[in-house]
């Protein structure tokens, strides 16, 4: 017999060696397993969770904006976001056709969205709820309709330039919406879900959920009735005078609460962009002239010059000035608007007549130093601190560059620029007893669980003496009763005020801003209002066209204000 085919011990020994080698190899893999599954476990667990977990934001309900009486100025409405889930679509054609029909998008756009290989593809957001419901009723696989909130402004254009609007993510873009975004926006919640490799959420996996916290409601000082009446008035005036724009501000001179701020033309807050794409045009459309732009205040500023003159004691009510129709300053002749001259006038009469040569005299008596001092005291050299972003700064000569000619023109409100709100605040301080208020809209924020944040604003006391203020109120009353502001006079109400006709730069362009500031009642002013008419056609005297606007405003709102005060 051959020795082949017989098992020898060497074979058995080798088998053992083989087995040991295999066990060593297996042991090596076990060591590797321990390393990966114990030592590197945290690392891989985290990476895997990163891969499996999807974070979905839950939007917080944005807080409402109310007027002073609880009228809702900004709210939310339900809208839908339509998305497609590529892996779930069964009938591609049907989905494309439905999207084209219901969402009014082009077929190529719909096709692109449907055919894109992604977990979930957003087709359109801010779709009306009715359309969303209709899409849902198609019951097509792979189409998802999510409900969402969108900002909604019940009154459309009302106070558009004050309220501002929100963007696609419900974030405030401009106006109060932007300024108080941190109160209004709330805290968004989130849902953490596990998904498969195609982005499908797993039903059975327990989701981690952080509930959103709704934003605070913002209560403003705006009075819906006054705001809407002022808007009508401004729109009517703009049309009647063929003006570029009309602004009306109504404020409480005692505490700076703004009851109305109108800038026509207003825009639709529910569609702030319209079809416009040019950002410059859009920014111009959204601008709040009263705050964002400066102008030469003109004769209204004579209140400040008169106040400075009385306060520093360089003038008294007994002073007289004789106007011959023009006056020489240095080598320049400056004319009065009444070229034949006003003749001899008392101090009060110079204000009533708004006589330029007289004010050049008063101004020169006050002097550059004190002129700047009182402009500063009346808040004209710095921003007012109003709670809307983008306030413009004063444009004025450096004090050391002011010569007699500059001082003379400044005395009647030219050769420097301020914002309308700055002028209104200065006027408020002059008539309210000398307190420099901070103009503002926001009064308080109330959270969902009713905790209240009151907003407080600085009031600078004794900017001017009470006595000067009393005197000025009386002078301004006479301006309305017998002087240049007589077109604002209303039988039975005590009103004070001052008119202005500002030339727009460059001078001689024939463009004007006509304005009027009026307050009531004279003894203890509760309301101060300003009207600015930008580039009126035809007659452009503030006393002729702006004063009647305030008169009409007061005719309607004074009875209303007095009745609500009682």
């Amino acid at each position, binding site marked *: 017999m*051959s*020795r*082949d*085919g*017989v*098992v020898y011990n*060497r*074979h*058995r020994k*080798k*088998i*053992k*060696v*083989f*087995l040991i080698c*295999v*066990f060593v*190899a*297996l042991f*090596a*893999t*076990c060591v*590797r*397993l*321990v390393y*990966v*599954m*114990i030592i*590197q*476990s945290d*690392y*891989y*667990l985290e*990476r*895997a*969770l990163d*891969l*499996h977990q999807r974070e979905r934001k839950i939007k917080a309900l944005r807080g409402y904006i109310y007027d002073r009486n609880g009228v809702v100025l900004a709210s939310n409405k339900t809208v839908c976001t339509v998305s497609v889930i590529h892996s779930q679509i069964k009938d591609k054609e049907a989905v494309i056709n439905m999207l084209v029909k219901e969402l009014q998008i082009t077929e190529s756009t719909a096709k692109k969205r449907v055919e894109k290989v992604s977990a979930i593809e957003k087709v359109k957001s801010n779709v009306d709820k009715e359309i969303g419901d209709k899409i849902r009723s198609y019951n097509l696989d792979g189409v998802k309709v999510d409900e969402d909130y969108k900002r909604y402004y019940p009154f459309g254009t009302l106070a558009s330039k004050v309220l501002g609007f929100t963007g696609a993510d419900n974030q405030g873009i401009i106006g109060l919406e932007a300024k108080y975004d941190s109160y209004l926006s709330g805290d968004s919640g989130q849902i953490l879900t*596990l998904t*498969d*490799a*195609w982005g499908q959420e*797993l039903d059975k996996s327990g989701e981690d959920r952080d509930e959103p916290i709704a934003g605070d409601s913002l209560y403003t000082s705006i009075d819906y009735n006054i705001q809407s009446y002022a808007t009508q008035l401004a729109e009517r005036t703009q049309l009647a005078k063929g003006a570029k724009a009309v602004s009306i501000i109504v404020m409480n001179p005692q505490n700076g609460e703004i009851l109305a701020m109108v800038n026509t033309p207003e825009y639709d807050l529910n569609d702030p962009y319209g079809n416009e794409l040019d950002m410059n045009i859009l920014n111009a459309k959204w601008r709040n002239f009263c705050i964002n732009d400066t102008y030469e205040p003109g004769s209204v500023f004579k209140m400040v010059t008169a106040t400075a003159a009385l306060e520093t004691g360089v003038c008294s009510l007994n002073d007289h000035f004789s106007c011959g129709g023009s006056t020489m300053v240095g080598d320049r002749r400056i004319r009065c608007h009444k070229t034949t001259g006003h003749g001899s006038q008392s101090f009060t009469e110079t204000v009533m007549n708004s006589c330029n040569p007289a004010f050049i005299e008063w101004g020169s008596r006050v002097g550059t130093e004190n002129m700047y001092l009182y402009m500063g005291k009346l808040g004209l050299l710095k921003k007012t601190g109003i709670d809307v972003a983008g306030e413009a700064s004063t444009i004025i000569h450096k004090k050391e560059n002011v010569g007699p000619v500059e001082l003379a023109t400044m005395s009647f409100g030219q050769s420097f620029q301020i914002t309308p709100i700055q002028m209104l605040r200065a006027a408020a301080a002059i008539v309210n007893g000398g307190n420099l208020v901070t103009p503002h809209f926001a009064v308080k924020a109330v959270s969902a669980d009713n905790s209240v944040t009151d907003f407080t604003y600085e009031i600078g006391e004794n900017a001017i003496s009470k006595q000067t203020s009393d005197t000025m109120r009386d002078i301004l009353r006479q301006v309305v009763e017998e002087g240049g502001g007589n077109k604002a006079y209303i039988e039975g109400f005590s009103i004070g005020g001052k008119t202005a006709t500002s030339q727009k730069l460059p001078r001689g362009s024939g463009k004007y801003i006509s304005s009027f500031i009026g307050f009531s009642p004279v003894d203890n002013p509760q309301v101060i209002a300003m009207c600015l008419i930008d580039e009126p056609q035809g007659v452009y005297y503030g006393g002729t066209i702006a004063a009647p606007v305030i008169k009409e405003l007061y005719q309607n709102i004074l009875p209303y204000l007095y009745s609500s005060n009682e």
Partner: protein
Amino acid sequence: MAKKKKKPKLKYFDYTLLFVTIFIIGFGLIMIYSTSSYTAQLEEGDAAFYFRKQFIFTLIGFVAMYMCYKIDYHIWYKFAWPIFIFSIVLIFALIPFGSSANGATRWIRIGPVGIQPADVCKTAVIIMFATLISNNSVKLKKFKVAFVIFSLAIVQGVLIKVISDNLSSAIIVMAIGFLMIFVAVPNYSLFVALGSAGIVGVCGLYAWCSKIIKSGNLTSNFRLNRVLIWVDPESFSSGKGYQTVQALYAIGSGGLFGKGLGKSLQKLGYIPESQNDMIFSIICEELGLFGALCLLLVFAIMLRRIVHIAHNAPDLFGMMLAIGVFAHVAIQLVLNVAVVTNLIPNTGVSLPFISYGGSSAVILMAEMGIVFNISSKIKLEQ
């Protein structure tokens, strides 16, 4: 009659091996259902799609195992050449009849059944080598003879590689032949030399790859890239390294005791076809280090029992057959776990008895039947 009565008493049967085999196969079926049900539901509309197919193959496998157990293993001695030639014919049959999947032609489809010729080759090599070694055990001292025998495995390996582009199967076939010759050849020196050369080579390759990766000079060469991925899979995680990285995520997120059976997240499409070669990573994720080590322990018991049978086989042919089966299971097991844990570069090796695959399951179970038959021939001495 008296003779007959005495015989069954002395007849040896390895119940441990039977139990362990059935346990692993049953466990494999459970894991196939667990790993494939989610994607099967999505893609085929039937959660049990893969499970059902594998279950049918397992039944066929049990029939094959029982038949091989009943047939005297010496019959394979006579059929060694025909089976070997048949396996080569099968490989060539891939050229006209093969169906492609993932760029490689590996399957011959007969109706609903797909056969991988590479699986048949593994058994053919085992039987062929057992026959030749038992015929030439004395002459095997000569290197030339050993090499001539080994060259048959090389021929098969080259054919598998060239025709079906299946490098891993080619390596396994050659490795089975090589290890059988290792057991048969009397000396060690050659193997020690080869082994140390191999270890040095692997270390050198790793160092070289690390250098390439650091230089950032990545090539488009497919094989080289595969090796580069091995060294630093996460740099390639969006491309060719995706599978490796995903497998590591699965293993690493298993922790000590796993997420629980059926609770893997990586099987939800993150690891494509997770019921195939990467099934071990899902086992790790669901059953944890504990479960994975238990499974490896059961495999170790199986291997130990096969070695025990080889050790006590009545003749060299039986011993070499059993060692061939041992080599087959051991190589695939070690390579699979090593690939899944990224110990070695990614190459498609299935986990024996567990990974999804019909012909592989039937072939392995038939081989186990042969081993059971060998065990029954062990003469017990009292």
